[in-house]
């Protein structure tokens, strides 16, 4: 069936089988392979993307359920070549090793910081508790998110100056 959605700001429209999982739609139909797939029971969270700003496990959403929604994947985190502070934080604080859980972790962190710009460590740990990492032992992930919290988005800084009318408008229409 025909579905349409916004992915990383672009309108996409495809004809797909109703049973196709959103994770496969993103990876195989759209070719956005930063979103990963690590289990078959909705535990690992390597497939987390943002749907209307909320983290969802895309292995547990049918692509047709995303019809008409706004999806953001890891490929949409950097804006205009500038890394999101979350991405920078993961590099600064060694929040990744093999990199497989990283996209999902970063998107959850972005969603957390959007609703709670100054989380404490316990809030960060709770936010990422639906996601498994096998390499880092989580402590450096917590520090990465704290780094990002201490280095807000360039657009937020601009908004504080009252000069971000355009991006605010975009958010509203999304």
């Amino acid at each position, binding site marked *: 069936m025909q579905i349409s959605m916004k992915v990383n700001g672009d309108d996409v429209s495809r004809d797909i*089988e109703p*049973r*196709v999982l959103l994770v*496969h739609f993103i*990876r195989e139909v759209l*070719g*956005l*392979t*930063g*979103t*990963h*797939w*690590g*289990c*078959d*029971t909705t*535990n*690992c969270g*390597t497939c987390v993307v943002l749907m209307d700003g909320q983290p969802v496990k895309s292995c547990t959403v049918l692509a047709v359920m995303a019809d008409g929604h706004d999806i953001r*994947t*890891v*490929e949409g*985190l*950097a804006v205009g070549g500038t*890394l999101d502070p979350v*991405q920078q934080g*993961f*590099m*600064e604080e*060694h929040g*990744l*090793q*093999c*990199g*497989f*859980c*990283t*996209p999902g972790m*970063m998107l959850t962190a972005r969603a957390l910081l959007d609703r709670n710009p100054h989380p404490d*460590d316990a809030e*960060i*740990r*709770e936010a*990422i*508790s*639906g*996601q*498994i*990492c*096998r*390499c*880092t*032992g*989580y*402590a*450096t*992930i*917590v520090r990465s998110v704290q780094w990002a919290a201490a280095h807000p988005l360039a657009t937020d800084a601009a908004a504080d100056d009252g000069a971000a009318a355009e991006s605010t408008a975009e958010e509203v229409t999304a």
Partner: protein
Amino acid sequence: MTTVQEHAPNPAAGDPGRPIGYGRIQRKEDPRFVRGKGNYLDDIVLPGMLHGAVLRAPVAHARLVSIDTTEALAHPRVLAVITGKDLQALNLAWAPTLSADVQAVLVTDKVRFQGQEVAFVVAEDRYAARDALELIDVEYDVLPPVIDARRALDPDAPVIRDDIEGRTDNRIFDWEMGDAAETEAVFAAADVVVSQEVVYPRVHPAPMETCGAVADFDPVDGRLTLYETTQAPHAHRTLYAMVAGIPEHKIRVVSPDIGGGFGNKVGIYPGYVLAVVGSIVTGRPVKWVEDRSENLMSTSFARDYIMQGEIAATKEGKILAVRTSVLADHGAFNATAQPTKNPAGFFSIFTGSYDLKAAYCKVRGVYTNKAPGGVAYACSFRVTEAVYLVERMVDILARKLEMDPAELRLKNFIRPEQFPYANKTGWVYDSGNYEPAMRLSMQMAGYDELRREQLEKRERGELMGIGVAFFTETVGAGPRKHFDIVGLGMADGAELRVHPTGKAVVRISVQSQGQGHETTFAQIVAEELGIPPESIDVVHGDTDQTPFGLGTYGSRSTPVSGGAVALVARKVREKAKFIAAAMLEARPEDLEWEKGRWFVKGDPGAGKTIAEIALGAHGTMALPEGIDGNLDAEVTYDPPNLTFPFGAYICVVDVDAGTGAVKVRRFIAVDDCGTRINPMIIEGQVHGGLTDGVGMALMQIIAFDEDGNCLSGSFMDYLIPTAMEVPDWETGYTVTPSPHHPIGAKGIGESATVGSPPAIVNAIVDALAPYGVTHMDMPCTPARVWEAMQGRHGPPV
């Protein structure tokens, strides 16, 4: 308590603790990973690529009666359905394992474990391939399975491996190390002897990315390109040549970015072979990617050692001897990944960090109706089991002697002046300074204060435990004459080219799965040549592009490949000296090296940088005799010994007396891996390994019911710690370089996985002391802790 001691004082004299090659630098891998631009196996898409899926056995032990593939083949999107009979025709139904056994690629005669590969479907997409699995009709004649390893050699136990001619029971091997008579004499004369059965249950490395392959066979020139999740691409290439009969120069194995390996991706799985067969049969590329339950149920498990431990000591607490008898459950096929001459890996390092008078072990391996494996999950070839055994036994002895477990260890350490130290089972430890590491760990923990807090809590009926573990690792296999994998000596190659403009490419034979090789190997070259790390590319994982070597596992990359890279850089530096001499019109012996530059002794202004020398080497100048132009070199490094890193770990747990739930409140890890290349990466390796320890100690087990059903085939039951179950790690270090290693560096990657489980279990047993508990086996789940508190501790399976 969230303080992380990142730069603990180095108690050794001088400054061997200086990290090399720019030390704590950001990783070269990260920019692509944080953008979602890594290239993992399942990201690979080739023109015309098809998808494979494996039909798996629903039972543990059964005679195969018939397979009907008619309906599956009739599926409009299915191109091929391959069965064991098809493979028999190609002589590929069975493949050799890394332990001189064979493993069925597809079942031809009998199913031997639940989840075993029965048929392979090749279809146009992954959904159709799965659909077609449902259309295959298989008839089984179910047989009684062997599940409990303790019953595997019962006279009435069914013979699992009736495929092996003359096989009448389920015994795989008996192996022993040490001197039985000498050990018996020491035990007979000892004041105190304690014994305990210690079970290290079956667990699974469960990397976030499962195993997979994309096979692309070109029928015109007979060339196979095989993308695989493999930790050992060169060894795989050679094995495929041996098994499939495709000449080695026509096989290219590519290991792309790997989403964690942890020993799971060392061996060759049936799925890889099936992808190759699928590509040969269809003439198109075939991708096979397993799902999580397939990964947990059919790929390499870890541990599964039932160990009877004994320790002998004087009443003053001098440890005299350790003795153990092990029953090893290897599953249905002996596919253990380890050096050929070591059927129980390096388990004989169970003498630990202590100066013993005698030691002896015997290990018996048996077949059961379970998936193959054994060596995986950062075990360093069974060192996890060895360290767990000895560190549990020392703790049990401490309790018996009513001594503090840290004090007992301090009293028995091998002393620094005894290194290189030959233990009683044939290992020669390279270096160690154990007491300062133990003292640092105790100081970071506030050990005495913790013991006081524990006393107060006990008076209030609260359960707090403090666990100590001190381990000596054994990593970096190894010297060719002693260590090989299926006949391939465990040396590693390195090639280094410095381009005309002074940038460099180093090609290595090992394969990162997240350990940061692209960064740290550049740092080694940077240290040796003075070229900054950002100007050095590290190439790995493509057998067409890299020198031969054995791959990454057993924490062997730094000890072996790291040695190769340091030596190849020195070879380039030496070649550069001769070219610089010609450029400076000086004699080579008159030149002196400072980082990045050769200059004339006594005339520091007269010198040439590596970049200038590189340009000269590629230019038109007359080169000295014997110098053939260009600035490059290659080496194969055969290490003289393994490296023996060590660590002192202290764990603090709180146990809920009402529920048996264990909370790891603090964990202090002091590691010594000799010279530290990148402290940031080492700390990350340690954090990951400590989390493995929490997983194994508290929640992980691959369990089976009596019919052989795997009860842990998904993340619903096989639990991995999340951010909620682990504390903020506290790490420290000392530096005791390896005297035989080119840069003094030892391996580290598996140390924390090896060292943390005994620290955690020791802490839990310590917490449960008021209940009279002296031992309990992992996993220490709330239910099992509760049982132990009621005096009903039992082995986990």
